[in-house]
Every structure is written in C-alpha cells, then in structure tokens.
C-alpha cells in the first residue's frame, strides 16, 4: 500500500545526535546516532520507555532543538540549512506537532478560536475575520467538536476534547507531516480510540504522514505501518508492525512486547514476561543498524547477524 521507494521518502534522519549540556559533567546523550526514513503517507511508530529519547527525536526533527550532529532531510531539504524567513515559514507549515499533555499544550489564557487560529494568523491564511472564524469552526467540526465551542477557554474541556483542539491547531496550516508525541497516553481508554480514529481518518482524507511517538505498544501496533524501537537514545530495531510482532528479533523488543497487558484474563494468568538485561547493549561491541530482511533493521554487531538471521526463521517467542 505504501510506496517504499527512495523517491517516496518524505523524511530522512541520518546519524542524528542530540546531546544536552555538552561538555558539562551532566552531559546527556538523549539521542545517540539514530537513522531512519519515513515514507510519504505512512505512519511510523516510535516506541520506547521513558528516557529512551523518543520525544527528543521528535522535537529535534521539528527543529525545536539544534541537533548536536547529523542531518534531517525533509522533503528533499536539509532542515538545519533553512536560511530565509520564507523557507522557515514553509517548513513550519509543512510539518506540525501534536503534543502529549492535553492540559499543558493549550494556553489557558486564550480562547479556543485564538488557539486554533494561531497558525492561520502567523501565515495570514484568512482573508478577514469572518473567514478566520469560519476556518476555525470548520476545523472544530473536523475534529468532532461543536462550532460554538470556539469562544470557550481550554479549562472547560475534557482531556480528549482538548487533545482534539490541539489537533485542529496543527491542521490549521494544512501540513503534510505530523509528529504526534504520545497524543493519547494521557487520555482515557474510550477517548484514546476516538483520537486514534480521528488521526486515521485525517490521514486518509488529507494524505498525511505521521511520526507517532508512544509507549503503548498495542495502540502503536494498530496505528503504525512501521515501528522503530528505541532504548537509551539508540534505535534497536525497525520493521513493519506485523513483522515486529511476528519476529521480535531484539531481546529488548521481545521483552517490551511481552510486558503489554492484554484485556483477556486467561492470557494474563498464563503470562510469562521475557526478561531483558540492558547491559548487553554496553559490552563495547561495535553495532550498527543492519537490514537483516527486507525492511527489517536491527542494531547488531557482525557476529550477532547470524544469530538474528536464525531467529527470523524461528516461531515468535511471544505467547499466543
């Protein structure tokens, strides 16, 4: 369905490093040399536990941080080489972000209509006030809110409604690429499904590309075409979502998948968690991402490749 040819790459992340407090004793290597591509029209899921660097990766891609080193190419252009105001504005319109915390991501002192219209105002997308109001109300309707909600303040809405306001704000500038940074982790289960459905619907209607950052594996599996697993700032494994579940090659991936709670009491009673020892990542061996099967990448050293190749042919280690 997704065209995985080189021409269809919308985003290329190459050897991205994002360190904080460089040179100081509290230096943090939040993202440590990761590379991956995202293709037009797909949803790329980025999973990892807290501190894995997944949020930092997203923020570095949208250029909220200046990368320590590495290259981010969006739509054929190196993001850190955007010089003119026009280029920057264009980039800001093409790539947008949905944030994690529905309570912190909306300015509490602004009305919903001004929040949603922020991008419209910056880019002068509205002819006049009436056009601006109409655009805002249409957007609210698109995300399933009432038109008359536009004159209310964020605190009057529930978490799920706020998250939809955040989505409307991102959509206002008609982007092609949206980074969704744990957009559902703060929401209730029944509301999570609503937001995910909305994101999927918008993707179909507007041909959007998503980078979906999350720690909830079952939801990521459902929404993503491909998944990248991060741990300690490194990318450990990338594969299509069916493949990563069928053949979790990396021990960390297998451990993560085996820990996901399933709403099925019998399954839960029989649960066995696959343990993972993180020290194996720090044995000093030189590892890099290797494409071990088509579209299945794994961070491995030379001598580990045969082991992983063998694993590919074995049945899944996960409980059925």
């Amino acid at each position, binding site marked *: 369905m997704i065209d995985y040819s080189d021409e269809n790459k919308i985003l290329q992340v190459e050897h991205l490093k994002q360190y904080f407090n460089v040179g100081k004793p509290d230096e943090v290597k939040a993202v440590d040399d990761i590379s991956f591509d995202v293709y037009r029209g797909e949803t790329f899921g980025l999973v990892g536990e807290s501190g894995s660097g997944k949020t930092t990766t997203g923020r570095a891609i949208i250029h909220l941080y200046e990368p320590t080193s590495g290259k981010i190419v969006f739509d054929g252009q190196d993001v850190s080489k955007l010089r003119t105001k026009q280029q920057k504005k264009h980039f*800001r319109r093409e790539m947008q972000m949905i*944030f994690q915390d529905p309570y*912190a991501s909306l300015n509490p002192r602004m009305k919903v209509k001004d929040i949603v219209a922020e991008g419209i105002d910056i*880019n002068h997308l509205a002819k006049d006030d009436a056009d601006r109001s109409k655009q805002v109300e249409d957007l609210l309707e698109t995300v399933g809110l*009432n038109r008359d909600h536009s004159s*209310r303040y964020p605190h*009057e809405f529930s978490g799920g409604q706020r998250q939809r306001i955040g989505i409307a704000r991102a959509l206002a500038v008609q982007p092609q690429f949206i980074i969704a940074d744990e957009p559902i982790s703060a929401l209730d289960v029944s509301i999570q499904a609503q937001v995910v459905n909305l994101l999927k619907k918008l993707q179909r209607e507007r041909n959007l590309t998503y980078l979906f950052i999350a720690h909830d594996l079952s939801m990521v599996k459902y929404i993503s075409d491909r998944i990248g697993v991060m741990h300690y700032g490194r990318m450990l494994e990338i594969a299509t979502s069916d493949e990563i579940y069928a053949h979790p090659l990396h021990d960390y991936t297998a451990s993560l998948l085996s820990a996901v709670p399933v709403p099925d009491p019998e399954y839960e009673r029989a649960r066995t968690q696959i343990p993972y020892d993180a020290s194996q990542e720090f044995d000093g061996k030189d590892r890099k991402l290797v494409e071990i099967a088509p579209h299945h990448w794994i961070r491995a050293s030379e001598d580990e490749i045969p082991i992983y190749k063998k694993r590919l042919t074995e049945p899944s280690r996960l409980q059925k």
Partner: protein
Amino acid sequence: MADNAKHISAGDFKPISAEDRGNLDSEKISAPSLTFLQDSWRRFRKNKAAMIALIILIILFILAFGSNLFETHAPNATNPNLANLPPKIPGIDINGFNGTLDQSGQRINAYAQAHAGSKYFILGTDYLGRDLFSRILYGTRISLTIALVASFFDLAVGVVYGVISGWIGGWVDTFMQRIIEILLSIPNLVVIILLMVILKPGMESIIIAIALTSWINMARLIRAQTLELKNQEFVLAARTLGESSIKIGFKHLLPNLSSIIIINLMFTIPTAIFFEAFLSYIGIGVSAPQASLGTLINDGQKNFQFLPYQMWYPAIVLSLLMIAFNILGDGMRDAFDPKSRE
C-alpha cells in the same frame, strides 16, 4: 428492584429515534464560561479580609491624592500659637476628641488656653502648630507615591529583565543573573547614604535607591516562571507554528505571568513604603518641612509621653497601609493561584 415498573410502557423499549439522539448532545458543557479574571474575581470576592483591605486602600488613595480637597489646613503652615493642640472634633465630647488635655491630673481645654477661637484640628497640631490631619494625608500621599514608583520599576524593569533573561537563556541569562547578584550584595542603606553625598535628602534619592534594587525580586521570580513556561507545550506549539519571540512574549508569556506579577507587586509595595518611612524616620529621607509618615512618627515620638496622639495617628495610618497591602496581596494570591494555598 423495579419499583417504577408500572410507569413504564412497552413502547419505551424501542430503540431511541434518530431525532431524540440528536437532542442528546454528547459533547455538552454545562458550566458557565468564565474568563480567568472573572474566575479570580469570584474567588477574591469570597475573601472578606482582602475585600476590606481593598476598600481601605481605595479610601486611603482617594483621601491622599485628593488631599487638596480634604485637608482642613495647609500642611506646612506653621502657627506657634496653636502648637501641640489635641484633636478636637466639634460636637463630640469624648476625652481625646474634645480638645481637652490631661495636665497634672486635671483636664484643661487646650483650645481655650491657646485662644484658638472657633478653629479646630480634628487630629490636633504638632509642635509648630501644623495641622496633623493634613500632614498625615500629605505623608500618606508620599507613601503611596513611593508605592507607585516601586510598582513602575517592578513592571518596567523587573518584568522585562526577568522575561528576557529567562527566555533567551544561555550565557545571556548567566550574565544577567550575575548583575542581579552584584546589585543584591550592596545594602540599600549604603546606596542611599552614598547618594546623600551627591544629592540632598529627599524624594529623588529615595526613588533612585528604589529604582536600583526594588525590581530584583520581581526579575528573579519572573525569570524562574519564564524558564518553566518556555518548556510548556503550548509555547513549543507556538514555536512549531513559527511564532516570533516577541509575539510569544506578549501572547503566551505575559498573560500567564500576570498573576505572579500582580501578586509580587502587592508584596513589593509595602516593602517600599516601609523603606521610605524608615529613611524619613532616621532623618535621611524626606526632609522638613515636608511631611512623611516617617518624619511624623519621628516628631511624634519626642512628645509621646505627654501628647501621644502625635505619634499614634501617623503610626496607625502606616500600619494600616502595610497590613492592607499584605492582606490584599494574600487575597490576590489565593484568587489568582488557588493551588498555592495547599
């Protein structure tokens, strides 16, 4: 279990019609829409002490700045004949307000002794015969002027300094914070005594001293808050939309800093008022013949044993000012920032 079974007809057990479904708004919001200010005012109104403080301050402001209308006599006009007269309010015959004095066990009519005729001074006169009420009004005006000046520097310097320092961050922030630390390390009293060498004692030197240091606390608080706001997702969202720094400052930072600004202002003001009163009291502030609450208290204490009213009234007004501002500040904090109470 089903007590109400008799009220239910079989027709009730059919799936709900599309029309009825439309009436069930599943995105309904019932609470009335309140803006931030309305919501704060609602909480503030419930705080009785703060409301009283606010009313007292409004009255004091009107009296002080309209003192030309209210003063019964010129505040600096001396009249040695009418010196040290006790308070007298016509029609009130209570000791302390009827113009009588307790002299060696006997109550005497001071006004008659001084041949004051029909003149009366509602809070009495000082040792030069100046009307105490008018002088207190005048002194209050100076205190409130100082309050306004301190607020001005808090806002114009403190807020701007703090926002810039916090928003830009990095070495700029470090540099700006070092400046603040240096300023803080110089005691205020030393600054004012040094200023005395250049300027004569008076409002100018007090204002300069306040200008130098009063905004520092505000700048620090605002910087800390800006550092926090800067990483809030709504500010990040504005940045990903390409909003300029200036606009982020006005649209996102200032509105969210406003409560901190107002609250801190309410605590800067009494400090500044007290600072001025203290300087005037020890004689390096506002100088004679001008009146300030500090000089009035200083004058009054000399006669405190015999004419206690000369110190009591200015002291009461000063205390009232300080307490009212503090209570108002507390009330505003609770109103703007209800979480801080827990």
